[in-house]
C-alpha cells in the first residue's frame, strides 16, 4: 500500500460520482474548509463530475490567505532589521503587505530564508549564534505542534537567538463565524483531514448539533473528497446533522494527544484578525508567557512599536468574499488581469492553497 495511487482510482471516482448523482434529490450547498481540498477539486475536476444542483463552495482554509496585512508588514520590518534571519515557508514570500512583500525585502538585501520544517529554522539558529533567527510561523492546527516542538527544543538547547512571529489560526471558530453570518448558505461541511488528525473531531460535534449541519472529516485525494461529499449529501437527504469520519486511516475522534499536549504547553488561544473577514474571538494562537522569550513580538517590541496603525489590504481585492465562499475567484473583476501570481493583489492568488491560485493554475479560462 502506498496510500496515494489507491485513492486516485478512476473507477472508484466514477462510482462515487454516480452514487452522489443518484442520491441528490434537491439543491445543496457544501463547503470544503481546507484549501488543500479546494486544489484537489479544481485540479482533478471533481466539481465537474457532480450534479448541477450540488454546489461546492471553497472555504477559508488557507492560513497564508487569512494572515492580515499588518502581520505581513511586521514580518517585512523584522526581515529588514540588521542581524536578523527571517525564516518562512515559501508561500508567504509573495503575499503582498502594504509596503511590499518578503520577496521584495529579500531582493533588497534582507536575509529571508525559505524553510520546509521548523527544524530547519532551529538548525539555522544553532549555526548562526550571532544572528537573530525569526520564524514567520503560519498555519492551522496541523502546523502548530511542529512549531511548538521547535520552541520546546529551543528552550532545552538554550538557544537565545530563536523566536516566532506567530500567525497561527484555528478552524472551528472560523466555521462558526461563517455559520452564524446572516449571509450564510452553507448546509454541510467537509472538515479538514489533517487539522483533525491533530485535533480529533470532538469540537465539531457541538458545531454540528448547534447549527444543524452535517460535518464529514475528509482526506485530500480525489476518492477521499468524493466520498466525503457523498457522506454529507447522504446526511442532508436523510435530514441528519452529525459528525462522520471519512479519513479513518489518519483521524481518530480524540486526535493526536501527544501533539495537542505540546501545543498546550507553548501556545494559548487569542483573538485574531482574519484577512478580509475581520476579527474572530479565540481564533488564533499566541505564545504563553512561560515561553515569552521565544515570542518575536516581545523580543522586538521596541522595533515593532515604531510603526503606526495597522494597514489595510488592497481595496480591489475581494479575498474576504472568496474566503467566506460568497464569491468564486473568476468572478473577481481583477482575476487574471490586474491580479496574477506574478503581480498579486491578494494572498489567495499566491498561496499554494489559495482558491484564486487554484483557478488560475487549473482553469485559466475562468470557466467554472
Amino acid at each position, binding site marked *: *500500500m502506498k496510500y496515494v495511487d489507491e485513492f486516485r482510482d478512476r473507477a472508484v471516482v466514477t462510482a462515487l460520482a454516480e452514487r452522489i448523482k443518484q442520491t441528490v434529490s434537491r439543491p445543496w450547498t457544501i463547503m470544503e474548509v*481546507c484549501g488543500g481540498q479546494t486544489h484537489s477539486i479544481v485540479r482533478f475536476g471533481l466539481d465537474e463530475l457532480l450534479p448541477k444542483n450540488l454546489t461546492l463552495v471553497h472555504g477559508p482554509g*488557507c492560513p497564508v490567505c487569512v494572515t492580515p496585512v499588518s502581520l505581513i508588514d511586521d514580518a517585512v520590518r523584522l526581515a529588514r532589521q540588521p542581524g536578523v534571519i527571517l525564516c518562512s515557508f515559501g508561500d508567504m514570500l509573495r503575499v503582498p503587505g502594504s509596503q511590499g512583500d518578503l520577496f521584495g525585502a529579500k531582493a533588497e538585501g534582507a536575509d529571508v530564508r525559505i524553510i520546509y520544517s521548523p527544524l530547519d529554522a532551529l538548525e539555522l539558529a544553532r549555526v548562526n549564534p550571532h544572528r537573530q533567527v525569526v520564524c514567520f510561523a503560519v*498555519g492551522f492546527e496541523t*502546523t502548530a505542534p511542529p512549531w511548538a516542538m521547535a520552541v520546546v527544543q529551543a528552550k532545552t538547547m538554550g538557544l537565545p537567538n530563536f523566536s516566532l512571529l506567530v500567525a497561527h489560526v484555528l478552524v472551528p471558530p472560523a466555521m462558526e463565524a461563517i455559520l452564524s453570518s446572516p449571509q450564510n448558505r452553507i448546509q454541510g461541511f467537509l472538515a479538514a483531514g*489533517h487539522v483533525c488528525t491533530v485535533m480529533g473531531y470532538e469540537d465539531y460535534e457541538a458545531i454540528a448539533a448547534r447549527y444543524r449541519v452535517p460535518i464529514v472529516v475528509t482526506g485530500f485525494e480525489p476518492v477521499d473528497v468524493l466520498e466525503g461529499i457523498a457522506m454529507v449529501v447522504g446526511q442532508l437527504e436523510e435530514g441528519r446533522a452529525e459528525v462522520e469520519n471519512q479519513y479513518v486511516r489518519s483521524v481518530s475522534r480524540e486526535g493526536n494527544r*501527544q501533539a495537542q499536549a505540546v501545543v498546550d504547553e507553548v501556545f494559548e488561544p487569542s483573538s485574531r484578525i482574519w484577512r478580509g473577514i475581520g476579527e474572530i474571538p479565540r481564533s488564533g494562537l499566541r505564545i504563553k508567557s512561560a515561553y515569552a522569550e521565544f515570542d518575536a513580538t516581545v523580543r522586538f517590541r521596541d522595533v515593532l512599536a515604531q510603526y503606526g496603525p495597522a494597514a489595510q489590504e488592497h481595496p480591489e481585492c475581494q479575498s474576504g468574499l472568496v474566503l467566506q465562499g460568497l464569491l468564486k475567484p473568476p468572478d473577481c473583476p481583477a482575476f487574471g488581469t490586474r491580479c496574477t501570481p506574478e503581480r498579486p493583489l491578494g494572498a489567495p492568488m499566491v498561496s499554494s*492553497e489559495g482558491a484564486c491560485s487554484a483557478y488560475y493554475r487549473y482553469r485559466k479560462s475562468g470557466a467554472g
Partner: protein
Amino acid sequence: MCLAVPGQVLQIADDPLRTATVSFGGVTKTVSLALVPDATVGDYVMVHVGFAISRLNEEEARRTLEAYAELAAMEVKDRVEGEEQQSATGREGVKSR
C-alpha cells in the same frame, strides 16, 4: 499549508526528536517521529513540515479500499445491465459518464 504526505519509516534514531529516515515512494527524508511515539519501523506515517503527525491505520485503509473495490464493481455491473436494458428497449439507459 496543511499538506501532509504519507511515507514509510525505514529507521529510527534514539534521540529526543525520534529522528527517522522515511521513504516517500523511494525518496528518503529525515523526519521527526516525536509526535507519534507508537510508530515503528515499517509503519506508514503522515508527514507535515518535517514531523509525522499520525501513524496510518493499515487495517482501516484496507477495509476502505475493499469497500471501494466493491463499489466500483457494482458500478460496472449497473452500467452493463443498463446498457443491456437500453438495447433491449431502445430507451435511454443509465449513463455513467
